[in-house]
């Protein structure tokens, strides 16, 4: 059964106000088209989750769609601190978000625990740090500490996460949702499989036979997937291995714009509210920077050797 639809339909149907939303990617394969659509549809009161958050999370916080953030880190990478994130946390603009902070070890494992149907996972980090002295909306449920029943060592237990919906961007998927990636994985596989349903955004929809030619690349199988969206250039200004590079110039533009509330609002107007969908976004990009700049981001092809699963 085909699950192919537009990003607008997928976000409208499967992301509800108040949901816990896992959003995959870190510079590598962020589902930016869907992030823009969430902002465009003015979703409210979301709890957003990911290790190592970047400009996509900063933008959602600035746009006011986020109430709670379960995370480990948020910055604009080479462009420094997240401006909207800082305004939210320091000045309450547009509102102060509640944040639960973990680490890049514990949070991916919390998602993995969710994907495994467990209620918690033991981890060996955060001990002796102030991360154990602060909590917000999760309260006492942020963590527990026990002496390991096996070796007696103090061990931190952190709760499993079961997001209402995960949104990931992948290289290719078939129309039922079998989703394949290559390159840096981040916490994408754990996040997608922890969620109750998955929106798969992809560079290209391929035939089921193409999936079957290299099935080891699949990170989430069709039965967990609610929607499949073909969204070429859908991770921009992040990158997708084998398709296009990171766009540092747009990253810089975002940093400069988000230095002020007015600049940020103008950026949203130009790149999010002012374009109907990713197609219009690409058209605007080419209008603004020229086709050569767009073409320059496209990846050269350097194919790996074909593999054989024959027996």
């Amino acid at each position, binding site marked *: 059964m085909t699950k192919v639809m537009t990003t607008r339909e997928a976000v409208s149907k499967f992301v509800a106000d108040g949901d816990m939303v896992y959003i995959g990617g*870190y*510079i*590598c394969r962020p589902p930016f088209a869907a992030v823009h659509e969430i902002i465009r549809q003015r979703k409210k009161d979301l709890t957003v989750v990911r*290790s*190592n958050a970047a400009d996509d999370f900063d933008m959602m916080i600035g746009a006011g769609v986020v109430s709670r953030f379960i*995370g*480990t*880190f*948020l*910055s604009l*990478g*080479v462009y420094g*601190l*997240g401006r909207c*994130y*800082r305004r939210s*946390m*320091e000045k309450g603009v547009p509102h102060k978000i509640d944040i639960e*902070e*973990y*680490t*890049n*070890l*514990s949070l*991916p*494992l919390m998602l*993995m625990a969710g994907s495994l149907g467990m209620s918690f996972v033991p*981890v*060996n*980090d*955060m*001990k*002796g*740090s*102030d*991360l154990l002295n*602060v909590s917000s909306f999760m309260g006492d449920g942020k963590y527990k500490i026990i002496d390991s029943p096996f070796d007696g*060592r*103090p*061990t931190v237990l952190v709760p499993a996460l079961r997001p209402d919906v995960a949104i990931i961007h992948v290289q290719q998927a078939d129309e039922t949702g079998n989703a394949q990636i*290559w*390159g*840096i*994985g*981040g*916490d*994408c*596989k*754990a996040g997608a499989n922890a969620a109750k349903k998955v929106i798969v955004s992809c560079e290209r929809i391929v035939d089921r036979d193409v999936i079957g030619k290299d099935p080891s690349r699949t990170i989430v199988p069709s039965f967990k997937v609610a929607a499949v969206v073909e969204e070429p250039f859908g991770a921009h200004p992040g*990158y997708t*291995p084998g398709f296009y*590079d*990171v766009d*540092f110039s747009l990253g810089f533009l975002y940093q400069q714009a988000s230095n002020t509330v007015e600049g940020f609002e103008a950026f949203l107007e130009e790149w999010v509210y002012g374009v109907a969908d990713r197609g219009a976004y690409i058209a605007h990009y080419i209008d603004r920077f020229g086709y050569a700049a767009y073409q320059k981001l496209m990846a050269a092809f*350097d194919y790996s050797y074909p593999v054989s699963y024959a027996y």
Partner: protein
Amino acid sequence: MSENPNNYYIKPELMACCGAREIRDHDVVIVGTGFPAMSANIAKHTHSPNAILMQESGVVDARPMRPALSVGDPCLNPGSAMAGCLIDVMGMFLQAGWVDVGFLSGSQVDKFGNINTTCIGDYHHPKSRLPGSGGANPIGTLAKKTLIIALHDHRRLAEKVDFITTPGYIDGPGARDGWGFPPNTGPECIITNKAVLRFDKSTGQAYLASYHPGSTVEEILSLTPWHLKVADDVFETLPPTPEELRVIREVLDPHRMIRIYEGRGYV
């Protein structure tokens, strides 16, 4: 110095070399970007050809064609030995005890090597909200030794950090053992733009081990906000060798991106 290009170097190059010298052949090293990646690659191209470098995002033994600008940089993918995920590197390799060296930098570092990358001021009403832990906390907790990069002034070094994002020796000797950290782990040194500080394991506190050329012990004491002990055998940091400089300039960073650190105060 600039008349003689063979001897001329900038402070970030010296700091990167200080980091490289802490790495041994066959070490497994978690690097981020900037200095750490530069340091680890200098080591790999000089005395530690068999060191294995990895990024927390899931990449092992990358062979980038340009300096990576983030742990998720696209240049890390082609040529790497493994493009896995966070759980592979932070869980299977780091938490399981396979990582020898972790590099960290901090907005604020204290005398016990505790690092703050969370907030300046009160946590609930921060003067400055910083990025957070990311992979720093587990690296500082679980890597066999941690190398810390910091600016040497009263703002970046502190008697006590505002928030312990990543534990060093916490509040002194025995604290890591009390929490059940892996034995014999912890900060190895703080590499600043003025000096290399090392740790006295009996007190858990940093002391001055070497001062960089152009700095003096007195200057460093005045720039350190706690009473810094000075090693009896304190010495001048060895400048970058011609071979180290060749690797930096010809192999790793021909476009001299390392200069951006001068603009960030690493002078």
